[in-house]
Every structure is written in C-alpha cells, then in structure tokens.
C-alpha cells in the first residue's frame, strides 16, 4: 500500500459479543467529534453498519463484484450517521465458496479503487467476523492494512478463548509488519466478577483493557430503532462510555504484541476462575480484586 490515509483500526471478537454495536458506536462518536470515518464490515453477514444507516439496505462489495465487472465506490457505500462512510464486504451464501478469500478480495478492491486516497478519512474501522477462523479473516491485520487491532470480549470463557486466538494471530503477523494490539474492550459487563476476570486475562497475556462497556438497556433499545446510542440517546451514560472509548482510540497510539496463553495454560487459568466464581457465589470472602 502506498501512503496511508488515516488511522486504520481492526476490531475483532467472538461472534455475537457486540463487535458491530461497539464499532458502530465508536464510529459514530468519532464522527460526532468531527472526524471523517469509514467503517468496513468484514463479515459475510454484512450487518456491521446497519445501525449507522438506520437499517437501510446496502449492496455488499462482493455481491456487486459478482454482478458487475466494474465496481464504483458509490455502488457499494452509503453515508450513515455523522457522515460515516459505510461499506460491507459481504460474502458467499453459507456453505458455499470461501468467505475468507472474499474478505481478501473485497479489501483489495477497495484499495484498487483508491478509496482511502480519494475519501481521505481520519479513521478507518474494520469490523471483522467473530473468530480468526482462517487466513482470510486475518487479512485486515496482515500486510499493514490496519495499524492496530482491538479485541472485544465479555467474561464468557468462549469469548476469552476467541480473544486469545486473535492474540495468536497478532503475535504471528505483528513482527512482519502486521497490526499490533491496541487493547481489549470489555463488553457486556454485568456479573460482579466480570471486570476482574477480564483484567486478570489481560494481565496474563501482557495486554490491557481500554474500556469497560456495561451491559445496557439503552444499547438494546437504540439497536431496535436501528441507531447507535450516540444517535438515539446522545445524553445517556452509555453514549459517554463509547465517546470515552473513541477518545482513547484517538489519543493513545500505544500498542503491544500480546503473549497468548497456550491450550493447557488457558484451561488451567479458566479453572482457577471457576473456583473463584464458585467462592463468590457461595459467599467465601477473600481479598478479591473488585468484588
């Protein structure tokens, strides 16, 4: 890639953990702060930018590529809340083709179309499908496409597991010019131990939490209206949570190469937390972190 335009941020995490909601709210908050933002959904589900666009249809890059040989940016983008340019990479129908290669092809096409040179964004956010299931989904963190990656996780073990997998991918690509980890976004914080558990995980892996997003009724409500919290409830506490996250991403450039746990280490770590949670539930009082 030639000269880079704007900061390119990739956001990963287990499916259903709230990546798209988090990414869209960060995009909205950055736009609200006056920045020019592009959000690219890298998921065959192609619903990353829905709440930025009020739920309107947007043809995906790959669908358009399939139907017409020449694709223009106008065909595959829509301007959403606060002027955020929304793009969905799209993918094949389930069970057919190779979605990973699709992400690769879509990102390549956007580069060929000089999207970044012409639009001159301050921020480009890549919202990438759940887990790093194959090489294709690691494209945004390879080859210096994104500068930093953020991982969204809850305190559920499977979400932590997916985060740890992403750490493995970053660990692999970062030394050869791939993205480094900007930090962990702790989402859906509800259980009393959730913060401590995620904090401990980041400590174990040499990473840090950049923001805690509490589980919130406002988010659910805004989503049902097809909007981000920034748009639907700009004065809510939740909106400030996202604004703080956006500010962090804007102001902090620090990044690390994480040290993922290997299989047995991760299981062992999880087991210790199983015991701790049990003790909390049964009322054993110790010098617990934030409980």
């Amino acid at each position, binding site marked *: 890639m030639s000269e880079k335009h704007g900061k390119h941020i990739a956001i990963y995490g287990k499916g259903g953990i709230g990546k798209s909601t988090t990414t869209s709210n960060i995009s909205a908050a950055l736009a609200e702060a006056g920045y020019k933002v592009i959000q690219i959904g890298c998921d065959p589900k192609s619903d990353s930018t829905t709440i930025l666009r009020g739920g309107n249809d947007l043809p995906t890059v*790959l669908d358009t*590529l*399939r139907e017409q040989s020449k694709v223009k940016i106008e065909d595959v983008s829509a301007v959403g809340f606060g002027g955020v340019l929304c793009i969905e990479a799209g*993918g*094949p*129908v389930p069970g*057919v*083709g*190779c*979605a990973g*290669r*699709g992400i690769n*092809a879509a990102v390549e096409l956007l580069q060929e179309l000089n999207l970044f040179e012409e639009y001159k964004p301050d921020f480009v956010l890549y919202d990438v499908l759940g887990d790093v299931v194959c090489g294709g989904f690691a494209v945004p963190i390879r080859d210096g496409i994104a500068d930093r990656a953020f991982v969204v996780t809850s305190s559920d073990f499977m979400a932590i597991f997916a985060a740890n997998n992403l750490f493995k991918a970053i660990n692999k690509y970062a030394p050869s010019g791939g993205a480094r980890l900007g930090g962990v976004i702790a989402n859906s914080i509800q259980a009393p131990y959730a913060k401590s558990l995620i904090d401990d995980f980041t400590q174990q892996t040499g990473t840090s939490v950049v923001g805690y997003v509490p589980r919130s009724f406002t988010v659910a409500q805004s989503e049902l209206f097809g909007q981000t919290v920034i748009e639907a409830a700009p004065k809510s506490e939740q909106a400030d949570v996202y604004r703080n996250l956006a500010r962090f991403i804007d102001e902090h450039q620090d990044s690390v190469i994480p040290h993922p746990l290997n299989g047995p280490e991760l299981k062992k770590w999880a087991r210790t937390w199983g015991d701790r949670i049990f003790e909390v539930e049964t009322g054993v009082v110790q010098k617990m972190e934030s409980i």
Partner: protein
Amino acid sequence: MAHHIEGSRNSCALHGALQVIEAIEGVVPVIHSTAGCGVQHFLGVNRLNAGSDRFGGPPVSNSNISEKHVVFGGSSRLREQLKNTVKIVEGDLYVIVTGCSTEMVGDDIPAMTKEGRDQDFQVIYANTPGFRGDVHQGYQLAVKALIEQLPALGKGEQSSVEGLVNIWGIVPHQDPFWAGNLEEIGRLLEGIGLKPNLLFGYDQGLSSWNRVPNAALNIVVSVWGDSPAMLLEERYGTPVLKLEGLPVGSAAGRFLQTVSDRLNLDLTHTENFIKSEEKRLNTYLASLADTYYRAGFQREFAFVGESSQVAGLSEFLTGTLGLIPRTLIITDNPPEYAREALLSRLTGLVEGYSTEVVFSEDHAEIIDQVRSGAAELVLGSALEEQVALALGVPFLQLSFPLSDKVVLSRGYSGYRGAAALLEDLGSAILSN
C-alpha cells in the same frame, strides 16, 4: 525432518489422475481448477514424453476458475463446463477431476456429478487436489473413483469372463514404457491361456473397466497397485498377486508359474510356453555374447527410476546379464512398508557386494549419489544426462522424464522387453 527438493520428477495428484483418464479410450477428463493446472500437465508431463495423448495438450477441458468462483463457489462454473464438454467432446465417460483451489473452497463435486447423471451424462468424479500427494497418489485416486463409481452407472457386465486378470500399478507416462510394458505382460498372460485386462492403452476402454469386478486375479506390478487391489479384494473378494517389480526375462517365467499355481492352470502348458520364450531370449543373448565381451558390458551401474522399474530391471541386469548394481536410486517415494522389502531385496542383489540403495526425489541428492558412486554406466531419466556426461560413461534414458527418444509400443517387461533392454543398453555402451 523437512528438507528441500530440487527438480522433482513427481508431478501432483491431479496430473496422476489425468494420466490415468487420458490412457483409457473414450474417457474424457474435465478439470475443475485454475487454468494453470491443465497447462502444467501439458508442459510438465506430456511434452516430456514423446507422443501426447488425445487430451494431453491445450484442448483438455478445464473450468478455468477465477477469484469470483473461489469466493462464491465454483459449482455453477463446473456445471456449465460439464454441459459444454459433453456437447463438444464425444466420449463414453466424463471424469471430473479437481485441483487445489476448488477443493480448498469445498465445491460440492458429488452434487454436480449427480446433476450431470440426472441429465443422462455418463459422469463420475475424483477429488484430486495436488495437496493430497504426488502423481502416484493421483493414479490411486482416479482408479479408486473408477472402481467405485462405474458400477453405479449400470453398464457393468454381469457375466463372468473365465481367466480374466487385471493388471495394476503401472502409472501411465510416469513409466514412459507403460503401454509396451502392459502389452507384453498381457501377451505373456495370454500365452498361458488367460485373458489379460490391461485397462490402459490401445483398445482399452470402458468395457475393460466394467469387467474389472469379474476378474479371477488382480496382479500388482508396483506398490501403487496395492490400493486398487485391496479395494477389489474387499468389494469382490478377488485374490491378489503382488510382484516385486516389473517381471523382466526369467523373472517373467517365475511370474507365469506363480499365476498358473494360483489359478490352477495347466502347468505343462505354462512350462512349454515359458520354455519357448526362454529359448528365444537365450538365442538373442547368445548373439550378443561376442559384443558383450568385446565392449565390456559387465560394468558397475547406477539406476535412477521408479521402484518397480529399478527392482525389475536391476534383477535382470545383474542376474542374467552379470552387471553390478553400484547405486540404485528409487524416486517414487514408496510407502514405509514397501521400503524395507525393497531395501533387503536390492542391497543383496549380488552376493558379497554391497549395493547402495537410496530413496530420493531430490535431483541434487540424486546427482551427488550418482557422482560419488562413480558407476561405469548410468541408467536414468533425462535429468541424469549431465552427470553421466561428466562421468564420461554410457547413459541410457529409461525413466521419466525422457528427452531423447520416441516411445510408442516399446517396453522393458517380459521376454521381449528383456531383448529390447539388451538392444538399448548395448547401443548406449557402443555409442559412448
């Protein structure tokens, strides 16, 4: 441990499958892969063998998939390609063979095959991505597909054919003399009253393949014939006879005797046939005697080739002709279980003499071995020509790839093959 391979002579599974299909009359391959797979087959295999097959060049049907088909799946492209192929190329059977990209994507080939059959196309498929293995693996995969799927097309012959014998393990083109070798083995089996089912080459079409389940015996010439023979034993209970390489000269006689024993044939008839064949070969050997001594045929030799060739031909060269096996290099990567048997057989070919037996497909290693062995005669492929020149010794090309001869029906198996080998070897020595 991982190691690099320089100048391998083993192509990929897709090409092995194509070599199988192209060697059967009336069978049309349809490649489902990127364009390069077909071209590579032409450049890497057919051009290196004198005489290319019917579809061995650019005319081979290929779905030539592009990125669009990788992302969204290439099944519809294959459907279209199959329909067009059936219109343009006349055939008794169409075989879809897949390459790496379409297998990575996971295109549903069985469903496309079924669709073709629903439209009354005679079509089967073989999953043959190059990453599954080399050319020998491709031979096994294609043969397995034919054995397993042909009966479902409902064209199998139900009536049994008495004395029918299938021959497995000769990989078309990977053995440059495959056609001649098969024909000679067939001629010998006919000589003892059997009906050989050669399966590849002249006049070998679908009817030969439909007869496969009815055979009384499956003869396995190389380790690559093991899997089809085992499959047929499982399915139809057909007994198996494994050879220790191509039967050349008197080994052919022993082979015929074993077959006779196994099938309870008239032993006197077999012995008489062997006697007449031996007599003929011995006459030629006697005619050669003068030249043999004058030109000093008895030399230490290096042989680079496939396991069945090296094992079969070396035994004749040492046992009958009195040559000395210095370095034997086996290039077809036989499985572990077969290596031990080959080692113990080949290291002791000449009593009291230690033969170096090496398994390698790395050209650099092969050249080093041949050079350090300092043999007085080199038998191998075109790739060994330079080292033979450097050693200043006679050189005979007889394993894949060949560059200096046209091979149509010539072969080195059996009795006639033994005589052909004498001619070619003698010519190589005399012209040096």
